[in-house]
């Protein structure tokens, strides 16, 4: 670390002259990336691949990344947490310098990032990939302390294991209550995949138990596919949408009760998937708007609110593209190419992006939604006629194939991003 620190201070000392340079020569450009998830790690590595002379510094507080995709399988006991975890050795091997700390302040005008240890990084361009933060308090009674009794498990790690342990400890015959938030939020099909896998777990391990999913919406991702599977497989799962009184108005962590406008549910295990916003550093950088999310240019992913700052992944307002790991990775690669073009005074090419999200309903039963996107009307738009969900009528072999493709996707993307 000391070598890295001294190198940094030397460069920080030289930065004033770099900023004053009229054009950015490739060899001297410095890109800072905040966030080491699927988006941040992808953009950092892509930049080094596309232009090895660019200096790339990634700022990430955790030494080990814990992936959200497939973490619902961990909750259901189908998978263990280490299968979700990756070090940053591969990212570092690509030539990315990594500072394992928080970014505490961003000065967009001076193009400076201040880290928690006081180090100042200057950048030519900054990429924010901060993921989500929970809007603590947006749901009455749900603060950080409450999440220790009623886990959200919407950031994978200890929260994931807490929910799994609670399900394992619950006596057969217990009631599990989940709540899903209104749009937008990380991983649109995620709550319904989780409900499926918890229902499967209860059906196989605690058959007298029941799951109620309270939803702040009437419509959700892959809805017909999920509901078809539930009606065929999981009589122990009851979904209550907005118009049936599914919107949760408050929770009480002490009594494990969840209250809607119509009813109070007293449960043995409660999983609250709360309202969310862009990772808090986005607000410090001035790139999030009143919605809490970050509007971006759909060609370069540059912020609409601050020049020279790009936002990718869950934090960005990406139009039709969902907040998914696949999307964050696809956006990262487009953003990296755009940044390299901009550094060379070239016009970035108009991108095409793809997203594919698989959900696991139970072992050997996968379903998917896919989309292809292009810039339009200032956002990323669905290309008409493309994309959509798995067929409603399909043989077991198709569901099995999609479950296998889901795991294949996870193996592929985690190798590309962290391998």
């Amino acid at each position: 670390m000391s070598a890295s620190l001294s190198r940094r201070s030397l460069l920080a000392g030289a930065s004033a002259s770099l900023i004053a340079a009229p054009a950015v020569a490739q060899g001297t450009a410095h890109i800072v990336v905040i966030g080491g998830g699927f988006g941040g790690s992808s953009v950092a590595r892509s930049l080094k691949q596309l232009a090895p002379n660019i200096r790339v510094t990634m700022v990430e507080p955790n030494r080990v990344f814990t992936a959200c995709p497939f973490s619902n399988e961990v909750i259901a006991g189908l998978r263990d947490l280490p299968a979700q975890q990756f070090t940053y050795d591969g990212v570092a091997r690509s030539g990315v310098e990594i500072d394992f700390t928080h970014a505490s302040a961003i000065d967009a005008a001076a193009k400076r990032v201040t880290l928690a240890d006081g180090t100042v990084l200057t950048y030519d361009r900054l990429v924010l990939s901060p993921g989500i933060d929970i809007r603590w308090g947006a749901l009455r009674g749900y603060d950080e302390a409450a999440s220790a009794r009623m886990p959200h498990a919407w950031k994978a790690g200890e929260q994931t294991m807490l929910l799994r342990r609670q399900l394992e400890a619950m006596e057969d015959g217990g009631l599990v209550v989940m709540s899903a938030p209104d749009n937008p939020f990380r991983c649109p099909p995620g709550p319904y995949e989780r409900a499926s896998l918890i229902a499967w777990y209860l059906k196989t391990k605690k058959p007298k138990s029941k799951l109620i999913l309270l939803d702040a919406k009437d419509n959700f991702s892959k809805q017909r596919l999920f509901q078809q599977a539930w009606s065929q497989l999981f009589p122990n799962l009851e979904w209550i949408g907005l118009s049936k009184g599914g919107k949760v108005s408050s929770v009480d962590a002490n009594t494990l009760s969840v209250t809607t406008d119509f009813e109070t549910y007293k449960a043995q295990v409660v999983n609250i998937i709360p309202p969310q916003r862009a990772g808090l550093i986005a607000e410090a950088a001035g790139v999030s708007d009143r919605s809490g999310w970050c509007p971006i240019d759909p060609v370069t992913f540059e912020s609409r609110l601050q020049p020279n700052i790009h936002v990718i992944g869950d934090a960005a307002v990406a139009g039709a593209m969902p907040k998914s790991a696949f999307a964050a990775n696809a956006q990262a690669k487009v953003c990296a190419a755009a940044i390299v073009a901009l550094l060379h005074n070239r016009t970035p090419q108009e991108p095409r992006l793809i997203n594919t999200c698989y959900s696991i309903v139970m072992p050997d039963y996968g379903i998917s939604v896919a989309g292809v996107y292009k810039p339009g009307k200032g956002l990323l738009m669905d290309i008409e006629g493309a994309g959509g969900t798995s067929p409603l009528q399909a043989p077991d072999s198709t569901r099995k194939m999609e479950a296998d493709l889901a795991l294949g996707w996870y193996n592929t993307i985690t190798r590309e991003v962290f391998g």
Partner: protein
Amino acid sequence: MKSGGHMAAALSRPGIVMRSAIGLLLLCVSASGAGAAEMPPGASSCTGCHAASPTVDTPAPRLVGLSAASIEDAMSAWRSGSRPATVMDRIAKGFSDAEIKAIAAWYEAQGAK
């Protein structure tokens, strides 16, 4: 289910897939060099599912090492619905002939390096 079903069958060419792991590793390194800057629109999304590394455990076939013609044929067939698919039919419909041609040529060129 390591066959990869129809996708691998449709895209694989004997001989090409038999290259040594070391050879492929070198290809990947060269693919990530300066030439990568000219990647045509859409191509960078493919590696979300289609691994660059030959050692990843997945039913989705690698694209590097395939001929442009085989990629174009598969994409056209998925787009028209003449070849069954799980996901690629939905994705192929998002690309024009010219876009598919450019992406196919780019992946073929990575294999030729």
